[in-house]
């Protein structure tokens, strides 16, 4: 253990990946912001931006330890301690074995995952959420849901010699989730469904036009998500190596195929391939390949992506059938795409591609891996849905989770932030402070 020394190439890649993953959250803000009406774009983007603030601070205080600590030797949570992240700058990362990168680089990288996951949820409750209640929700949700679930999935424990302490429950069971199909996407998707139910539908849902106000913003956001996702997936190798290259290539081809898959469904069903479709398809492919990107061959990534794009294009219609206002389709894209991605490993996983993974059904491994994947996926789904429902219900009954109907109709941007995104009428005066 002592003979492992810091590797500068690995460290450089993880640091760069960390910055890439951070960029995904403002990218998400643009992606979501373009999809809402002009009167609520700022509030939509602010929900993502405040999440960066809240989660980053909590991460330093206790979040990283709760997710990745091993001191409690629990498979359910890391350790309950105020950390301050005050370890030595020379301490290396130990996550089921030593990685030759600083622990602080790993902690920063994982922070970005903790940031974007609650931000993803915000799309389910667009246009109507009280901003302070959202910020409080984020703090409670990451504490009770994300940090523990990240421990279950991503914490492989502190390995000294042959002894591993504090490995997560799903990681120890061999559930394969490379970059967060369960902990990030199923988790956020299930939570989005729960909050859409708690908050209820927007005023005028299915009666008034709620068409996206700016497709160029959506496309810029999708582009930034795609770009940042290379850090998310290839960075999860925690090193500049072959696994990172495999994850990188798979991320690209699955996303491309998914964008085409979504467009194909639109062309056949609606008559026109749309720009919202190409952006949504790309995101659905990114979601689906996230858990699988280091365990499958690139040809399989194309198939996974193509199916993801078509499946999600059909799944976004579910909310109209089941009558819940998941405004920006967090369920249809992240929950459905995440489930498919996790299960896909059970078919396409190959130990020849990556010796860390098992063989799926197509490689003669039988259904054992698929069973593990299904267990992990549905366990996280159920936990996230139930706990989020409880948190949401309590916030709604105490401080209130929704703005008043009048404010929602007039525009949540002005009501919650005293700002409007666009000057649509006459010019303003002032600039003074009171």
């Amino acid at each position, binding site marked *: 253990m002592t003979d492992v020394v810091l590797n500068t190439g690995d460290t450089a890649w993880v640091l760069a990946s960390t910055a890439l993953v951070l960029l995904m959250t403002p990218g998400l803000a643009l992606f979501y912001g373009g999809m809402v009406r002009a009167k609520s774009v700022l509030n939509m983007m602010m929900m993502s931006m405040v999440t960066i603030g809240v989660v980053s601070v909590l991460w330093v205080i206790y979040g990283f330890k709760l997710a990745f600590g091993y001191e409690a030797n629990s498979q359910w949570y890391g350790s309950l301690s105020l950390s301050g992240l005050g370890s030595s700058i020379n301490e290396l990362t130990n996550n089921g074995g030593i990685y030759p990168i600083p622990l602080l680089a790993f902690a920063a990288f994982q922070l970005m995952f903790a940031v974007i996951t609650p931000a993803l949820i915000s799309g389910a409750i667009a246009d109507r959420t009280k901003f302070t209640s959202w910020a409080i929700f984020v703090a409670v949700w990451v504490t009770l849901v994300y940090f523990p679930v990240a421990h279950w999935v991503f914490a492989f424990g502190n390995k000294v010699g042959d002894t591993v302490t504090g490995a997560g429950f799903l990681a120890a069971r061999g559930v394969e989730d490379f970059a967060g199909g369960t902990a990030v996407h199923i988790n956020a998707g299930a939570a989005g469904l729960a909050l859409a139910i708690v908050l209820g539908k927007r005023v005028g849902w299915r009666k008034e*036009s*709620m*068409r*996206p106000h700016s497709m160029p913003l959506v496309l810029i956001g999708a582009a930034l998500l795609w770009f940042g996702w290379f850090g998310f997936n290839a960075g999860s190798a925690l090193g500049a190596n072959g696994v990172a290259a495999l994850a990188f290539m798979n991320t690209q081809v699955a996303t491309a195929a998914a964008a085409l898959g979504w467009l194909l469904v*639109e062309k056949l*069903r*609606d*008559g*026109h391939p*749309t720009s*919202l*479709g190409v952006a*949504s398809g790309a995101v659905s492919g990114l979601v689906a390949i996230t858990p699988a990107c280091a365990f499958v061959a690139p040809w399989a990534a194309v198939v996974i992506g193509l199916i993801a794009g078509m499946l999600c*294009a059909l799944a*976004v*219609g579910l909310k*109209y059938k089941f009558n819940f206002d998941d405004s920006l*389709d967090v369920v*249809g894209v992240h929950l459905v795409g995440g489930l498919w991605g996790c299960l896909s490993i059970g078919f396409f996983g190959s130990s020849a591609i990556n010796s860390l993974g098992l063989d799926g059904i197509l490689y003669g491994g039988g259904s054992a891996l698929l069973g593990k994947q299904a267990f992990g996926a549905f366990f996280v789904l159920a936990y996230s849905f139930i706990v989020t429902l409880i948190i949401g219900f309590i916030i709604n009954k105490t401080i209130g989770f929704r703005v008043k109907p009048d404010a929602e109709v007039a525009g949540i941007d002005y009501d919650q932030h005293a700002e409007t995104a666009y000057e649509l009428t006459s010019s303003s005066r002032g600039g003074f402070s009171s």
Partner: protein
Amino acid sequence: MKLVTAIIKPQKLDDVKEALIAAGITGMTVSEAKGFGRQLGLTEVYRGAQYKVDLIPKIRLEVLVTAATADKAIKVITDAARTGNIGDGKVWATPVDSVVRVRTGESGEAAV
């Protein structure tokens, strides 16, 4: 005197303007307008959800002409604005009682 009002597609404004000038009819007022006709707007599709867009952007063009020129103006505008598709718009003329040119104080047909 007549006020000729036309509701046309925004992309046909330049054609109509050029055609009116070529026909010797100068002076016009243009405003951006929104509206719908018999087809009741358009349908847009976002993630499979159909949204009816009933108020479509249009150009409202107004030309003040002498009574003798009105029919010619209507014909010029109609010809220049036509694409043959739904939503090409309408042109109509209304009688005008009095007109005054602000700078000179001229009135009646001399002011047109």
